[in-house]
């Protein structure tokens, strides 16, 4: 059936993607909903179109392609490395624009050369857009969760805090609130009566007896000890939490993290800026910086004009399967994101792949590209 609402440039775009040596795949429009909700969180539920099968299975209209393409890869067990291209309709309620629109993109699975694969994703997105928008200058914003993770680790923060900060990375308001809360000397959590009792009985000293106490209490109150959090898990985290109780984030570290998150420079200048930050702060982030530098070099080698790319240290996505690179492409000076991508090394394992499969990819927003093309025509 010919799709008459398909943007006119779609066939040419599909050819461009094929020329980038990616195998074109299709996935059913109707998908099981659970993987999307599991991976992206409950927030997605308001935006996707849910229905139920006759047997009560929760189904949805495909809200994006990455997860179905990855699931398909796992199911067909075709081995890696593998590059997949897709072009099709997705269904998702948005603040602006129709809730049914087209996306295309590439998912690059299993390339062990991280810098090269990252650079290729950026270069592919830019080149595909440049072919649709000749003469329009593009701008790329790039972020790297790996550098943030390295900075946080080098600050010597307790493991529990590192996790919290990394989890909040990409959500500016939440991260700022978290830094404030960790710094606030007034805000120590109360030692509640329940914990007082345990302390008096000496149970907080020893993790094993604490776990045994928790186990006994759960059984006595009719809670299963293996359906949810286990006694050992609760005991371990309680110990960790009590150790953190008296510590606050010191002003110097807070200052350093804030300074780092404020870094916003042309990509060509980013290695020097990060190196200077490391020198000034005395933080040992050398391995992360050398990976960053390798990617910058690879992006240049892949043929992306370095001066169209900006590195923003605070740019990330607060989802736990994103691991390193994130990027977005717009027409320079515009806000509409035409392509968005990133590295998601954890996704395939979360979806059930037996082996760890490094992965990077990008998605193109065809309706926004069409708008940009029309704007370009109107100007000409």
């Amino acid at each position, binding site marked *: 059936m010919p799709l008459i609402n398909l943007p006119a440039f779609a066939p040419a775009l599909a050819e461009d993607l094929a020329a980038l040596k990616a195998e074109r795949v299709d996935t059913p429009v109707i998908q099981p909903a659970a993987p999307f909700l599991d991976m992206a*969180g409950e927030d997605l539920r*308001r935006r996707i179109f849910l229905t139920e099968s006759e047997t009560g299975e929760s189904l949805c209209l495909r809200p994006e392609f990455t997860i179905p393409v990855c699931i398909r890869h796992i199911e067909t067990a075709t081995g890696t490395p593998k590059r997949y291209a897709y072009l099709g309709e997705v269904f998702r309620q948005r603040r602006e624009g129709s809730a049914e629109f087209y996306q295309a993109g590439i998912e690059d699975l299993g390339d062990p050369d991280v810098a090269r694969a990252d650079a290729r994703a950026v270069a592919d997105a830019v080149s595909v857009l440049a072919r649709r928008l000749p003469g329009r200058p593009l701008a790329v914003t790039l972020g790297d969760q790996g550098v943030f993770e390295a900075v946080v680790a080098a600050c010597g923060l307790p493991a529990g805090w590192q996790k*919290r900060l990394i989890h909040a990375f990409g959500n500016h308001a939440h991260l700022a609130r978290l830094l404030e809360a960790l710094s606030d000397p007034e805000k120590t*959590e109360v030692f509640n009566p329940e914990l007082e009792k345990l302390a008096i009985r000496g149970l907080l000293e020893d993790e094993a007896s604490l776990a045994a106490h928790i186990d006994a209490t759960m059984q006595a109150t009719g809670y299963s000890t293996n359906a949810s959090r286990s006694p050992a898990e609760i005991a371990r*985290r309680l110990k960790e939490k009590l150790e953190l109780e008296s510590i606050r984030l010191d002003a110097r570290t807070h200052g350093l993290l804030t300074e780092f998150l404020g870094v916003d420079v042309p990509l060509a200048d980013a290695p020097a800026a990060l190196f200077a930050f490391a020198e000034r702060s005395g933080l040992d982030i050398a391995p992360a910086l050398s990976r960053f530098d390798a990617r910058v070099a690879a992006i240049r080698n892949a043929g992306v004009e370095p001066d169209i790319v900006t590195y923003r240290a605070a740019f990330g996505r607060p989802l736990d399967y994103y691991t390193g690179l994130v990027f977005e492409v717009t027409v320079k000076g515009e806000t509409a994101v035409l392509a968005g991508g990133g590295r998601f090394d954890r996704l395939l394992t979360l979806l059930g792949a037996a082996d760890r499969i490094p992965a990077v990819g990008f998605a193109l927003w065809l309706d926004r590209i069409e708008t940009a093309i029309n704007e370009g025509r109107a100007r000409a």
Partner: protein
Amino acid sequence: MTVTIGLPSKGRMKEDCSAILARAGLPVVAVGNDRSYRGRVDGREDIEIAFLSASEIAREIAAGTVDFGVTGEDLVREGLAEVDARVEFSARLGFGHADVVVAVPEIWLDVDTMADLADVAADFRARHQRRLTVATKYWRLTQQFFSQRHGIQLYRIVESLGATEGAPASGSADIIVDITSTGSTLTANHLKVLSDGVILRSEACLVRARRKEHDSDPVVAEIVERVRAVV
């Protein structure tokens, strides 16, 4: 224009509503027998009463079939998107108090705050091969509170239409978001409310659908004024 007020059709809420309206000088009488679903205000041709089931009132206000409704704030905030643009909470009536809260098993000794819960949720998948599950009938309130207020994205809602507080013990969910007035049901089920886990302090409210024609309607203004004067 006749102004329609939607009131709960039975139970304690119905009696409390009638009492407030009587104090406000708007005594409600049933049309026909006591079980009738239509009513009127004694001596007022310009006000109609529609007796509705409590769960329908928010929807009827949103649909514009009634001008006012008396119902719990929780049901209105849960039932309608962009609620403050669509309705006005004209008066808080002082009865039907209930809090919508986040409650976790008491034995989670390490979890007292939403920040603790965020830590647990972030690690949950790695430890248990599934996301943290929340049993609730308050989908919208839970999502708004968890993700917008506390940056918690990674959890799953398990719909629960009754006996929600039993879900953690039975293993059908890890934690709950539910309504509580005294907390005794939570305690009986060995659950505790997080210290910053009160999503909403709800009570019965006089709720008005925001409609243009209300601006110039003296009856609408009079009802709001009369009710506000007695609460």
